[in-house]
């Protein structure tokens, strides 16, 4: 079966307790509560699973439904959650037997701390009364249930804490996914992903998929742009707003009303200008405006006269927008290469600098001399002659990354390393 389009979080979603990673103890506690509750022993009528996002709270309940063959009745914070609403849906389910027979039920209310007192009138008291009347186990989840308003709820619940997934556990899990996807991943790449998500498995899998899908190998450089991604939200709308604007005011407003960082936005505009403007006149004019925006930005930075920034904004919004001769047409905007390359090349630059330093020491030249008079030749040698490259690598004491930088690929680097 093709895995195209399938989210890996779903594809690799555990279906058994034994497959869930981390939080062994919490799961055991939950199961023993649930079993007692199902048998009708006297325990709390509800359980509240709390902890950071993406560590398996909801998943525990979903797996419980499968393993204990229970019908899962689910709500979460995104549903409209007035007391009325909750009563209607959950009340019904908890009072009467299922239409499909006498299967037991488990009721899940996700993200209860998302209930705000103002918006969800009676939401909290509705949940409490639900717990009181429900014949079936009720499970609540929350990130932070310690608001005083939740006290009455906490009193009714078995509180079970979920912790962040530990780094080695998470890395091992990602590795397993890569194995199944047939991807050769560097440990450093997986660790980079795992570290960023702070124990959130769901994010980790999403990040892994974003970076690795369709690849055979995954290097550190392939994942580093992820760090940038988080801050890109909403930028597509801003771009469309700018390019589609009919007036200067409109173009400026598209930026002003967003939270997008202007320096980053310049890169986005730069990336997408040739997609938006295909005629040479428009493109040249738009680039002229953008390059002038960049000049004002440089002046503002240099002189610390930040009032100049407003001219940057004018030119990068109104300036690039007003050059269009026809009506706006929609294009699919692209993620800026520069941001991707920049984060990659930061790493690459570090590797490159280290190589230059080694050459400088060994060959009695400056680092810039090493870069201009030696590096191009070394690259040529490493790309073309494994034997000679290995000798030089040994002499300069290069590691695998440096060898890969010079050879241009990890495959070639392996070949060279094997002769060291």
């Amino acid at each position, binding site marked *: 079966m093709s895995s195209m389009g399938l989210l890996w979080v779903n594809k690799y979603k555990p279906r058994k307790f034994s497959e869930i990673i981390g939080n062994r103890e919490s799961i055991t506690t939950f199961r023993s509560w649930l079993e007692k509750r199902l048998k009708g022993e006297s325990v709390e009528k509800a359980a509240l699973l709390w902890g950071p996002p993406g560590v398996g709270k909801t998943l525990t309940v979903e797996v419980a439904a499968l393993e204990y063959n229970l019908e899962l009745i689910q709500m979460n914070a995104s549903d409209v959650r007035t007391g009325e609403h909750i009563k209607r849906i959950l009340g019904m389910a908890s009072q009467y037997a299922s239409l499909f027979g006498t299967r037991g039920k488990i009721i899940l209310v996700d993200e209860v701390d998302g209930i705000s007192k103002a918006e969800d009138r009676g939401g909290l008291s509705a949940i409490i009364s639900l717990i009181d009347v429900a014949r079936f186990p009720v499970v609540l989840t929350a990130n932070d249930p310690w608001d005083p308003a939740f006290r009455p709820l906490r009193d009714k619940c078995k509180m079970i804490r979920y912790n962040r997934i530990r780094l080695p556990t998470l890395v091992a899990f990602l590795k397993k996914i890569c194995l199944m996807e047939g991807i050769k991943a560097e440990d450093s790449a997986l660790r980079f992903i795992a570290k960023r998500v702070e124990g959130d498995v769901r994010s980790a899998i999403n990040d892994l998929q974003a970076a690795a899908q369709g690849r055979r190998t995954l290097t550190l450089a392939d994942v580093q742009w992820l760090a940038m991604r988080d801050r890109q939200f909403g930028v597509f709308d801003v771009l469309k707003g700018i390019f589609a604007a009919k007036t200067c005011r409109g173009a400026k407003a598209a930026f002003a009303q967003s939270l997008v960082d202007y320096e980053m936005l*310049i890169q986005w505009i*730069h990336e997408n*200008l*040739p997609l938006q403007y295909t005629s*040479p*006149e428009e*493109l*040249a004019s*738009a*680039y*002229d405006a*953008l*390059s002038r925006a*960049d*000049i004002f*930005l*440089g*002046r503002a*930075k*240099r002189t610390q006269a930040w009032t100049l920034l407003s001219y940057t904004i004018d030119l990068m919004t109104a300036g690039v927008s007003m050059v269009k001769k026809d009506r706006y047409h929609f294009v699919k905007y692209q993620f800026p*290469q*520069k941001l991707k*390359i920049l984060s990659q*090349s930061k790493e*690459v630059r570090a590797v*490159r600098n280290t190589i230059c330093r080694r050459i*400088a020491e*060994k*060959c*009695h*030249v*400056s*680092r*810039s*001399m090493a*870069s201009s*008079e*030696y*590096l*191009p*030749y*070394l*690259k*040529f*040698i490493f790309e*073309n*002659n494994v034997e*000679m*490259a290995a*000798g*030089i690598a040994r*002499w300069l004491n290069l590691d695998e990354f440096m060898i890969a930088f010079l050879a241009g690929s990890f495959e070639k680097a392996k070949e060279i390393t094997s002769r060291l």
Partner: protein
Amino acid sequence: MLWTEKYRPKKLDDIVNQREVIERVKQFVKTKNIPHMLFAGPPGTGKTTTALALAYELYGSNWRQNVLELNASDERGIQTVRERVKDYARTLPMGDVPYKIIILDEADNMTADAQQALRRTMELYTRTCRFILIANYSSKIIEPIQSRCAIFRFQPLSEDDIANRIKLIAEMESVELREDGLKAILYVAEGDLRRAINTLQAAAALGVVDEKAVYRVVGKASPVEIREMMELALSGNFMKSREKLRELMITYGLSGVDIIRQMHREVFALKIPEEAKVKLADKIGEINFRMIEGADEEIQLSALLAFFALFGQQLREAPLHSK
């Protein structure tokens, strides 16, 4: 290992040409008394090699303990140079030579102010240290330093000098060096022996060193793709030319200034009317100025390529007079 190092002469007598310089230096070594020295000359003519060989002949096998190598381009400011010299000069030299040697390479990259400070440092430690300053241009070294140094001018190496050395190395490394390969090396080296040896070694990575191999190496080292990038833009293929630009910056590690300088050089080789070349050169100059001012290199160069694309279209629609 790299052949430039493997075949770097250890003794003064083995240095290629520079006979006058070597004769004078040898006199100093004989008396074990050397002054501050300034070695000036084009790259790859043996300045650093002479300094190292001199140290070797002076101190013998423990020369490393008595020599501090600094590179003015790498040290952050004169402050660091001073600190390192101070630390180094504190301890006494080993052996029977009563001073240590400090080799300061690429000294002409120091600002005039830094050189003034260097002069004071030189005076301060004259008793225990001798300086060998190395520079491409002696004129970039301030007068007061020049007057305290014995100045040695290294001559550009002749083609014969380089050819003999290259043939020798090829023989020692059992490399098959063809006549046309040697000629090509001499052509691209422009009197720089270091570059000649590096070119030889890189070409030898392919096997036989012939003209084709040498130009493959050089193609990598000095991107002819710059012209291709400009031609793509002029023909209206902006996207491809921008890709090329990024490739040059990322893969070859060229800076924006590197690229704009090469564009400037290449613009006159383009097959467009003479009048058009001037217009493009003018625009290139403007963008160059912006980059010196600190503008974003990729955006400015992209804007330049977009200008090229528009210019190319205008040329096709209303051709200028070809002169």
